[in-house]
């Protein structure tokens, strides 16, 4: 493998042994790696104690208190791309029941919401179109059952099927893994519903007693 002498070094030595060339390359690689590592390490002092979560960062949270029925508090997290994730707000009356939520059933209204599949990019054509008061699912507790509704008029893209086997997700993280469904509203429909929703601060104020004073 003597043709490695082809490599030119800055010192332009006329004769370089293969071993020297190899050493040069290894050193270069080490230098590159060190440089890379320097770039990767953050400045610890710049790091916040608790960073914003992916949800805080990418979504704007809206709330619909008493949606169609008292105590039926739901949230709508809207992504920058227009998609809306809906779920149960922490003050939803279902959480007040002893034992929390025990079961979730998507078989409401005209069809089983968990069954359908939206295929392809042209979601508007395949997906089901829901009104804001269309029922998406039913959550059950030991005492009662509560209907969860769409909140936003649009196409239903996805329901959280995991809730069927793991209804407890609603108790532990209703605002993340326990989301109910994903809706895609038309821009005009969103604007209409937006005015009737509350931002986080307004929602907290309204449900003051649940959040306590601090």
């Amino acid at each position, binding site marked *: 493998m003597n043709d490695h002498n082809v490599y030119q070094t800055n010192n332009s030595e006329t004769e370089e042994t293969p071993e020297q060339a190899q050493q040069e390359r290894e050193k270069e690689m080490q230098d*590159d790696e060190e440089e*890379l590592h320097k*770039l*990767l*390490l*953050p400045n*610890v002092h710049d*790091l916040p104690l*608790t*960073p*914003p*979560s*992916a*949800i805080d960062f*990418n979504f704007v949270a809206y709330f619909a208190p008493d949606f169609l029925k008292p105590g039926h508090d739901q949230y709508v997290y809207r*992504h*920058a*791309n*227009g*998609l809306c*994730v809906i779920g149960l707000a922490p003050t939803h009356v279902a959480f007040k029941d002893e034992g929390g939520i025990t079961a979730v059933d998507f078989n409401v209204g005209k069809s089983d919401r968990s069954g359908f599949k*939206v*295929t*392809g*990019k042209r*979601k508007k054509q395949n997906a089901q179109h829901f009104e804001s008061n269309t029922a998406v699912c039913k959550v059950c507790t030991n005492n009662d059952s509560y209907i969860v509704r769409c909140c936003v008029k649009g196409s239903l*893209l*996805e329901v*959280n099927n*995991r809730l069927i086997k793991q209804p407890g*997700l609603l108790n532990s993280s209703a605002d*993340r*893994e326990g*989301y109910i469904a*994903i809706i*895609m509203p038309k821009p005009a429909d969103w604007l209409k519903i937006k005015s009737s929703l509350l931002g986080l601060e307004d929602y907290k104020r309204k449900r003051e007693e649940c959040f306590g004073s601090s």
Partner: protein
Amino acid sequence: MANETEDAPTNSASESHATSADVERNPTDEDKNEKLLNDAVQFLPTDAVKDLLSKEVCLRCIFRLFGMQVPICSSLSVKSLLCHVLGEQADLHQNISSVEPNICRSCLGILQFTYCGDKERVVENESACDFAVAIAELVKKEGHQIDSFSLEVSMPPTILENENKLSLYVKRKYRSEAWFKDRSISECSSTKDALKFALTNPLETLLDVKCGISTFHIRLTYSRVEASIRIQNFVEKIEGCKRRKVDAKNCLDTVKDKSAITGVENSVVSTTEVIPVDEKSSNGLQDNEPSETHEFPLKKVNEPCRLECLCFRTPIYFGGRYLKYSRNVSQTRWIIDEERMGEASIEEIIGGNILPMCRGDSYKFHAAGREDIDVRMLGSGRPFLFEIQNAREVPSELLVKEIESKINSLENKLVRVKNLKIVGSQGWTLMREGEAEKQKQYAALVWISRPLQDEDFQTISSLKETQILQKTPIRVLHRRSPLEREKIINWMKIEKIAGSSQYFLLHMCTQAGTYIKEFVHGDLGRTNPSIGSILGCRAEILQLDVTDVKMNCFLTE
């Protein structure tokens, strides 16, 4: 003009205005050509020649019909010799012009170097050399730097029909003649070949480069100008679609597509109507008996063809690898509602430096994958390809290195380029090769909701070739199909960060197409498993860097 003598002939016609005299520069060449012509003409059967001339076939068509190539001479020489053969007086100008038809019925004036040019102006060139001069001017006007050229000619389908009809006519009429039996009429060359032969040497001389396979193309496209034409043959061939006969526009589009199948030249036809032709008329593609054997089968031609002359270079490719140091630079130009996203783009920074050096028309940027605008591309860099359209100049290796240096020394240091060089078409295959299998390496700044424990290092490192299932991330769900994708995480490693118990650097290598951000934060549980689920807590990602794109192309040699 034919007998002008010039001393000190110049080979490169780049500076001064080129004339055909430059081409016929050498008196001995001229004499030689005339002698060749003289000899050739001796063998022509006078009767047949007279007959064809009277049927308005031009001299060069007659020559090619009899399998002879006309040496490079001005038309005047050809005509005067022919007159001599025919026993007519050569010095009477009227005779000479009356010998040849205005526009040949077979080649439609193409081999007479007559055409309809810009602004409907009819151009009649005295010789192939004059014609070549006009073409060479165009090449120079565009400022092309070339080392070779390829000559392409495209003619209307009628030409081929005419060739066949003519050759049939001669075959039928003279098959009993002695001279016919001696020479096989099928040796006749096509109109296209005759034109190319006539133009090649003059063009080589004027452009000072050879003709052959080249990235630089000179394309001559001839088309009919007549208002109504007989393309019924093609219409009928098109899978029996009756409606196409009525709609001329539809018909033309289909003709363009189908002409490749029927084996006839692609033609650009400007017409407003299609006149249906009765089925007795001969189809030039078959050996039909024309019903009228007494009447000459070629129609009179009133106007020459329209000629479009294009010269261009096929795309050249620049390959290399890029690094992106900024979290505010997108890969490609990204504009929403007239506002640019990010402060710049890789394709504009690099392309904007390559294009002017090539004096090209435009560029197309291709990369082996991409990263988000807020993700840096570090390490060995990502392979990319720039396709430059119609470059007027192909930069030298030295110049390409200069381009690379220039980009790398830009003040804002947003982007870096490595191993930039001109690659052939294999650059494409190199990039596309193994695209699905290629792995990528990342470093992510991760935060978890509890302090890091000793076991965590082992938990993460022990996972090899882990399969995960990712539903289409919410952040792209609006424009991508809702699918569930299986991806492989090849390996992972936690690197502790001094001074922090909940932040760490996560190094990992994954299959192409894995959504890393979602793998860290879980995307509301739609990516399983995720770092959070593996460590049993909440995990967030603050920064992501690509540290290696494991591909074999455009590496440092």
